């Protein structure tokens, strides 16, 4: 008869060793602290971000002496005063904010039917096609995609070539605000679909059938049943698209042709072009504050419960 211990698979014995080592470091009596231990990676990650933010906050309160290119050793609100007094800052804040909101609305409008068809279609080929079309852009970076649009929408690009066939003179489709918004919508669409699809999958098809059997038209089923039920997904997707668009750098830089800067572009300029990290940091803090206020507003209007946070406690 074999020794029962030697009959254990090797992996079990390795796990035993780990268990003993863990028990030595973290005795059973401390079990009540285990959830806190599991929170540690998140605390370390968020803590690192907070430390970085403190450094940025500190920089934003120091002004650059242009005769020595050193920062002041005292704190002042001068950078913020400058940011709020320069009309250019107001221009880029408004452009970023408006752009982020337009992109969010358009993206959600496009993502909703995409996700609905992807989840509900009985056609396996169509579902696979939509899935591939959804994931393919993730393998292509944002910058490469933006350059792709330069080729397609340029004066000698494919779109103008097609327009030329019907006698239309080449149009300037790039280096303007709509081009930036177009690029952003195309970039954000997969994120939004990815966030909406699980919310739609969670709605049983029978509910739609039930609504129909009770006399609701397809439109009424959508507006009274599906959209309210998918609201957590819509809010989540909206939050992601809104914050990513607000802080985007590449699309305004590439498709805006230097004439449609967002806040991130202005921050880059201050950090790397004029070497004024203090002013750049103040713009970064303004951007963070703006994003936080927007997210706070969304939570206030729709409630954090719309993301199904803490729903089990209700």
């Amino acid at each position, binding site marked *: 008869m074999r020794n029962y211990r030697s009959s254990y698979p090797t992996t079990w014995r390795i796990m035993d060793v780990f268990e003993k080592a863990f028990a030595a470091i973290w005795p059973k009596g401390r079990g009540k602290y285990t959830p806190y231990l599991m929170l540690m990676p998140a605390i370390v990650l968020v803590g690192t971000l907070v430390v970085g933010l403190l450094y940025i906050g500190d920089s934003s309160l120091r002004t650059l002496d*242009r*005769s020595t290119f*050193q920062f002041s050793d005292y704190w002042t609100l001068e950078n913020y005063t400058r940011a709020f007094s*320069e009309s250019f800052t107001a*221009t880029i804040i408004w452009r970023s904010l408006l752009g982020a909101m337009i992109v969010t609305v358009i993206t959600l409008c496009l993502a909703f039917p995409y996700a609905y068809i992807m989840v509900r279609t009985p056609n396996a080929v169509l579902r696979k096609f939509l899935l591939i079309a959804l994931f393919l852009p993730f393998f292509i970076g944002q910058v490469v995609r933006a350059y792709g649009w330069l080729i397609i929408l340029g*004066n*000698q690009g494919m779109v103008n070539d097609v327009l030329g066939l019907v006698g239309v003179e080449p149009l300037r489709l790039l280096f303007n605000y709509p081009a930036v918004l177009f690029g952003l919508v195309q970039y954000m669409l997969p994120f939004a679909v990815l966030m909406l699809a699980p919310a739609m999958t969670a709605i049983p098809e029978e509910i739609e059938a039930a609504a129909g059997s009770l006399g609701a038209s397809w439109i009424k089923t959508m507006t009274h049943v599906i959209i309210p039920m998918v609201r957590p997904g819509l809010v989540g997707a909206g939050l992601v698209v809104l914050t990513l668009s607000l802080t985007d750098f590449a699309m305004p830089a590439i498709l805006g042709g230097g004439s449609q800067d967002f806040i991130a572009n202005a921050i880059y300029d201050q950090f*790397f*072009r004029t070497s004024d990290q203090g002013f750049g940091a103040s713009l970064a803090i303004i951007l963070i504050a703006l994003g936080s206020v927007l997210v706070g507003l969304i939570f206030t209007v729709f409630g954090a419960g719309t993301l199904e946070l803490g729903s089990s406690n209700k």
Partner: protein
Amino acid sequence: MTIKKSISRRQLLKTSAAAGAAGTVLAAPSILWAAEPDKPEELIIRAWGGPWVEALKNGVSDPFTERTGIRIIHDLTEDNEIQPKVWAAVAQNRTPPIHINWDTTTNATKSALRGVCEDLSDLSNIAGTTDLAKPVGVDGYPIVNTYGYVYVLAYRPEAFPDGPPASYHDLLDPKFKGRVAFYNDGIGFHFPAQVAGGGSLDGIPDAMDPCWDFVTKMKEQNPLLGEDPDFVTWFQNGEIDAACTISTNALGAKRNGVDIAWTVPAEGAKFDTDGLWIPKGHSEGDLYWAKEYINSALTQEAQQVWLDGLGLPGVVPGLTPPEGLAGDPSYPTTEADFERLIRISGRIQVENESEWFSRFKQIMQG
């Protein structure tokens, strides 16, 4: 028959010059090699990519490696992006990520004012350079300028059948709406715009309203705003008819077969320089060989090959202009050439550029 052996003044000068030149060539390395420290395996030089780094490699890096055995690594990080890394390394007493920064003089001036540059005034070959090698607005030689360049008005001859544009005012013609281009921060255009707007160069930096007035007029033309690579692309694609850009970009486009020409308009053109500098924080040996690299970049042989590739005028007398550039406005060599160009102290530029860039962007993007 008596043979009168006399030495004319011309012969004496020629002989002296030859002896002097030979002496300089021989003495140059020996001054530095008098107490030659151990050689590092490699030196890291920050450079711009494409034809820029190729020209540096052919003219300076490869001959240096051949002579010393030290491998040269070219780091193609953008000059603006390497700057904070170098500043942070010096502030934290760490070894900087590069040995030598090939930088715009304006950018390098910021580093010099911050005190992160090694002093290069003991380089033996500086004695053989023109005034252009000396950075304006800083003491000594924290940077050595290695060549100059002009922000020319490049244009497509097809769009200007009556001859080159004589002035920036010519670009205000409605037919050029959406067909002109500038750098997205207006660099290169601020000073000619000051003149075009009716102001004087003495008004820089305190009285620049004429500049902003003219930029506002130009905004009505809905110009394209971009960076160096954009100009070449736009000219190649026929998207623009004229642009204020560095002559090297125009030359690059021309060498790629684009029908393009350039001129210095009546308002003048901004003249600027690039240079080499060494960040503080390197070991004595590395510093010695980094200095030796820069010293070798100031020889006639190195400058000739390096700057042939860039099509730019160097800081060593006696260079032969690249084919087709002799007498070209983008290749100033004589006093008369420089009279048409605008050169503003690096110090004034770095102290005011943030405001100028913001103002330009506000007008163009407002």
